[in-house]
């Protein structure tokens, strides 16, 4: 019977071509959406590499006051560290966790190999105390690095280590820029750092040691020093008011805005999820349209083939056999569409499109195929039942 179905479908290839094309396109759209979902889920399951709970972000606004900014910032940080309830304080660039700011470059080279696009961060020695990085190799920055002259110390994440050094031990390795003017020596490796969002990929990252309070004195008057403060669990509005007051007392009028990283994470999540939800809704409409299309085509097919159904019943087919045949035909047509779609989708992992893991694409292919088969089976079920219930004498007479 399977051979018979293939013969029938092959001989009806012209009329089946559009149906197969529709299934192919639907599969491909589902594959793209599935890739996005699987990739997001895959990222979501990865460790973020840092702890954001009980961490506050303080945006300090000096306004037009540029005088003694370095001293002001240093004094401010001292005062904050001395405040009861504060565990640690660090100063960072604008690309804090969950910020809408990123800084990246692919200028890093090792033995002629160029790094992929890598996120870079300016950090100070206290950052691990605030964000609780998990160092897997070497160490974080400390006073030993004050003496570094030729090779600037850097810390990288495991992803960057794998990309640049493969199986080689990363510690002590020296990265250069394209002209080999700048040299950066790896002193430590953190396992992961995904500050973008819960769904962000674990991209390569490199950390530079920087005296940000120094830098803060040279920048545009509108640029705001950003502090990350780890506080004791349970700290709330009282501590927040204390910190703001201290900043204002020390700086004589600088403004400070305090957010928790948890709030920032929540805000970022909304922004990240919005296009995902929009895409999901669009895909849902598409799937509904495809389902209605398939349903209509099958319904039409059955009406067109009533005489054939009657004939098959006359020749010995049971009602359920007719239903199974229609379902089987639809599944064979679906298989042909899905096979063509798999050939197309397989190019993504083979060509490394978008730099996603091959596993993501393979899972997306499986998910899309399962969805298409379930969809067509659901759409074919009712028309097949109708076909199974057609009275042979009636359908033969209609011809």
């Amino acid at each position, binding site marked *: 019977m399977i051979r018979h179905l293939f013969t029938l479908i092959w001989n009806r290839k012209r009329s089946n071509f559009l149906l197969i094309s529709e299934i192919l396109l639907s599969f491909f759209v589902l594959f793209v959406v599935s890739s996005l979902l699987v990739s997001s889920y895959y990222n979501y399951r990865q460790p973020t590499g840092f702890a954001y709970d009980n961490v506050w972000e303080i945006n300090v606004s000096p306004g037009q006051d540029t005088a003694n900014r370095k001293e002001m910032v240093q004094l401010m940080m001292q005062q904050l560290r001395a405040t009861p309830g504060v565990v640690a304080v660090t100063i960072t660039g604008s690309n804090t966790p969950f910020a809408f700011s990123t800084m990246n470059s692919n200028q890093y080279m090792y033995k002629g190999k160029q790094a992929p696009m890598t996120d870079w961060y300016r950090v100070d020695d206290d950052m691990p105390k605030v964000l609780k990085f998990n160092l897997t190799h070497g160490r974080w920055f400390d006073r030993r690095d004050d003496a570094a002259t030729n090779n600037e110390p850097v810390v990288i994440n495991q992803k960057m280590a794998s990309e640049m050094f493969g199986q080689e031990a990363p510690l002590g390795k020296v990265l250069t820029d394209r002209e080999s003017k700048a040299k950066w020596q790896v002193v430590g490796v953190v396992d992961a750092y995904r500050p973008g969002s819960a769904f962000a990929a674990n991209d390569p990252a490199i950390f530079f040691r920087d005296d940000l309070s120094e830098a803060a004195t040279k920048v545009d008057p509108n640029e705001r020093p950003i502090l990350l403060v780890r506080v004791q669990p349970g700290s709330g509005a009282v501590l927040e008011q204390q910190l703001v007051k201290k900043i204002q007392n020390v700086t004589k009028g600088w403004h400070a805005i305090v957010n928790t990283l948890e709030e920032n994470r929540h805000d970022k999540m909304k922004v990240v999820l919005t296009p995902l939800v929009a895409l999901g809704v669009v895909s849902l409409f598409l799937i509904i349209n495809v389902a209605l299309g398939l349903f209509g085509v099958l319904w039409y097919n059955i009406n067109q083939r009533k*005489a054939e159904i*009657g004939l098959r019943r006359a*020749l010995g*087919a049971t009602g*359920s056999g007719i239903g199974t045949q229609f379902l089987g035909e639809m599944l064979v047509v679906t298989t042909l569409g899905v096979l063509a779609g798999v050939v197309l989708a397989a190019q993504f992992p083979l060509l490394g499109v978008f730099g996603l893991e091959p596993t993501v694409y393979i899972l997306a292919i499986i998910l899309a195929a399962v969805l298409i088969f379930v969809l067509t089976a659901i759409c074919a079920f009712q028309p097949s039942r109708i076909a199974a219930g057609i009275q042979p*004498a009636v359908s*033969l007479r209609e011809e």
Partner: protein
Amino acid sequence: MEPTLTTSHALTDSRATTSLKNTPMIKLSEIEKVYQTDTIETVALNRVNLTINRGEFVSIMGPSGCGKSTLLSLMGLLDEPTSGTIEIDGRPVTSYSDKELAKVRNHKIGFIFQSFHLINDLSVLDNVELPLLYRAGMGGKERRQRALAALEKVGLSARTKHFPSQLSGGQRQRVAIARALAGAPEIILADEPTGNLDSVMGEEIMELLLTLHREANTTIVMVTHDESMALKTERVIRFFDGSQVS
């Protein structure tokens, strides 16, 4: 030139024995068929009692709408009577399940239709194989051999790969006959088999049916409007307004 009818693969089995000749193959008792809609009730068959013996070639005649095709549908187990009983080969089939009815249709009955009812997207050979697809336990090789034998019997072994649209009306009806023969049925039900053919083709098809009847002793029930064709059969049953009149 049309290939001549061959008899090399005549269907022969024990059913041709004389001792069975007068046993009933199809027996209809008090058959009524009423078509009912919301407002209209149409009596298609009214208390029909009819017996067709094994190996008999019977024609059914009557004006349009008298219930001939309905009667054939009931004999072929394609429809259920409103009341009455049907026996095929001595067994009452009225209470059979869908699966049992399908099995009887597949093993015992072959159908020939006025409009041929060939599947245009299947080759001649695939069309003839169709009833054998529903026969449990029959392998592809045996199906092919039986289909080829049936096509040879109707003189179309050279057209196996053709599609119905590439054949003449007479050839299409020959394919339909080969399809009916492929399963080696004991009964052939032919609903106006020459109705869509010109007189020459009609004669050819009628000769073919007569040869089959002679050689394989198949029970044949043929609905026809053509008196000359009917007279070639062993018995003519006439219907009028749903009742048998002779």
